[in-house]
């Protein structure tokens, strides 16, 4: 199956930008670029990189005076719920990709747990068609591993792969049956594409609604033990090794899981994994007031788990950061904690939250965070954005000094269930260039004169 993988991404065709970013601090941790400079975007690519003030704008190019701003490769989120088809009241392709662009993302992968589930080439095809009209940034669509995500019968994975599925996942639900998991891994040899896994043993998580620990004991809310995640990861890394498959573990939440992943990777298993900003920054203490904004699956866990996740991001066992952006209608979240749906939005706050709580205090370096935030396509074989001459132009401009309050002027997303709502954060995305075009520009962001 020799589809060039980047051709799996779709976006609305707009005229490529001609744009000169002047005197920004250019930072691309993979190439070692880390200095002030000019960057010229033209015809969809990075046309030139030069010393600060050195590049001349071509005729009709927009000039962005970016002194004091940072330019990063735009982020890639491998885990976004666009809720389309079925719940366009919560998010659609346009609002979801706009939200992503506002967060500095230049590419995303959408999850298939929609209504109907993306389990056939026809549903996938119609989504791709819509994305070519509505998506502001390159968007890939994953397909389900099993029909209806029921965990029983494999989807037509080979046909779906040919139709452009960026990967396979039953996200939102675990693959309960080890037999089906094994079959999917075996069939992966034919279909190709990464299998991404929501790891949770439902026999252990039961009707749990929060992390099992002292706080769930106090609140009388059924707990989701950390071993409900780690035992499944242990099972699936074993199966992946046996079938020589490759898997990606979604939204890792527990220390035990990080340890299982370390052992599997040391043994040569082809397994990648992601962590979310909320699991890296928040703990189950947030749930003390039973605020449904903090209800998600997997749940926020203990401080010890959080520290293990940070260590995992640092070491690379958790190779990328994914938001698991999960929009919900407000009336659905205005429910008692136990009955409210799981999930939080996070595209617009991800970078600022990580920057404020991990980079500013010196826990993780800025370069490392950028590396993990741009690595989301790697497990799926997508190319990694880079600030290099002739590379596709995928850039975000960020003002690290700018402070803002999450949600103060609403959200680009159609939903507002953000875990960081009301938090004052540093680091504001001013502009995002994706696939060579301006995908987002902050309303108040003053731009230079057109030459």
């Amino acid at each position: 199956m020799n589809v060039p993988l980047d051709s799996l991404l779709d976006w609305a065709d707009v005229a490529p930008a001609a744009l000169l970013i002047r005197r920004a601090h250019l930072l691309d941790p993979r190439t070692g670029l880390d200095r002030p400079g000019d960057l010229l975007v033209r015809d969809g690519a990075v046309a030139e990189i030069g010393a600060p003030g050195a590049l001349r704008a071509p005729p009709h190019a927009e000039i962005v005076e970016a002194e004091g701003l940072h330019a990063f490769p735009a982020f890639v989120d491998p885990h976004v719920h666009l809720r389309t088809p079925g719940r366009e009241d919560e998010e659609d392709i346009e609002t979801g990709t706009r939200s992503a662009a506002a967060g500095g993302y230049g590419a995303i992968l959408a999850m298939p747990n929609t209504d109907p589930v993306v389990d056939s080439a026809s549903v996938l095809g119609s989504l791709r068609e819509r994305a070519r009209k509505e998506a502001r940034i390159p968007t890939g669509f994953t397909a389900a591993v099993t029909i209806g995500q029921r965990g029983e019968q494999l989807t037509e994975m080979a046909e779906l792969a040919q139709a452009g599925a960026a990967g396979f996942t039953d996200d939102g639900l675990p693959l309960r049956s080890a037999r089906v998991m094994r079959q999917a891994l075996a069939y992966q040899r034919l279909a190709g594409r990464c299998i991404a896994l929501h790891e949770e043993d439902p026999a252990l998580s039961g009707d749990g609604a929060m992390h099992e620990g002292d706080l769930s004991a106090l609140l009388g809310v059924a707990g989701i033990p950390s071993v409900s995640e780690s035992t499944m990861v242990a099972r699936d890394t074993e199966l992946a090794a046996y079938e020589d498959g490759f898997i990606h573990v979604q939204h890792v939440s527990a220390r035990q899981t990080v340890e299982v992943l370390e052992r599997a990777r040391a043994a040569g298993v082809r397994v990648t994994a992601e962590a979310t900003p909320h699991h890296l920054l928040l703990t189950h203490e947030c749930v003390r007031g039973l605020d449904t904004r903090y209800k998600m699956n997997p749940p926020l866990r203990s401080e010890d788990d959080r520290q293990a996740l940070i260590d995992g991001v640092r070491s690379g066992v958790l190779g990328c950061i994914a938001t698991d952006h999960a929009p919900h209608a407000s009336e659905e979240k205005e429910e008692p904690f136990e009955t409210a749906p799981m999930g939080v939005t996070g595209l617009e706050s991800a970078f600022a939250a990580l920057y404020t709580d991990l980079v500013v205090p010196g826990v993780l370096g800025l370069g490392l965070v950028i590396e993990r935030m741009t690595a989301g396509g790697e497990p799926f074989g997508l190319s990694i954005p880079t600030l290099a001459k002739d590379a596709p132009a995928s850039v975000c401009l960020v003002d690290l000094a700018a402070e803002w309050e999450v949600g103060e002027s609403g959200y680009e997303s159609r939903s507002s269930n953000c875990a960081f709502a009301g938090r004052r954060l540093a680091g504001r995305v001013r502009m995002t260039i994706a696939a060579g075009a301006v995908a987002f520009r902050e309303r108040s962001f003053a731009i230079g004169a057109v030459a």
Partner: protein
Amino acid sequence: MKRHLLSVDDLSREDIERILGRAESFAEVSGREIKKVPTLRGRTVINLFYEASTRTSSSFELAAKRLSADLVPIKAQGSAVDKGESLKDTVQTLSAYDPAAVVFRSPHAGAAGLVASWTPASVINAGDGKHEHPTQALLDLYTLRRRAGRLEGLNVWIVGDVLHSRVARSNILAFGRMGCRVTVCGPPTLIPRGVESLGCEVRITLDDLAEADVVYALRMQHERMTGSFVPSLREYAAQYQIDGRRLGAGQLLMHPGPVNRGVELSAEVIDSPQALITDQVESGVVVRMAVLYELLAGGSGPLRGAEDPSRPASEPQPA
């Protein structure tokens, strides 16, 4: 004291002392022929119950009536809830009647707190899922203090299904706040992980039960059998039933009801003079009167027209 009673955590030791003292004075009224006082005349109390209840709903009803409040009892069955109205909409609709208090029971943890955020009325948590049942804890403290004469220093064992019990959670906090030493005991499958953080010790056998001054047995629900939390009721009874052999002569016995005879308690201990079970039911009314009084009539200071909360309502009242 706060405007709502959602959790035992909302109460300081002084708050609890004051409520128990107030309940004592209402107990005097209950002994009279006319049991009504005018304290809450003209004010509305809504009993909103989303879960079945006999003693809690009836004792709140009696408590409100004895304080001369207008009471509106609402059960989820047969109400707009059955027609799919959301909790928020129901609460906001009822708030239009300008109630002074909403007594709320729900099968979901934290639901009373949500209701409190949607209504200007005082909200009393009458049980929210497996979370808390603060007025049960208060009436248990009241009953025990009356019998034992004190609370400070008592050694209380809470025995049974702690995992699924809101009564256990509220009582661990309440007994602890009043200076009791609290131990929980039950099958390891029914003891929540991390429960020590509430300030109690954990045992999994009754071997040291003799150290208890008070044995508080919890209801063992039959439906727990299906989750294989315990192998059988027979095995549960063999290991954890409080019976004549296990209950020492000097120990007091409590239970929130309704009792499963022959499961968590044997018949002989239920009917023994050490059992406070009927006293607990009796205390429910006066303690809930005291809670309503605290929240609605100004708490520490008496309110207009209520200089003496124990003044009978038989006297002529201004219209």
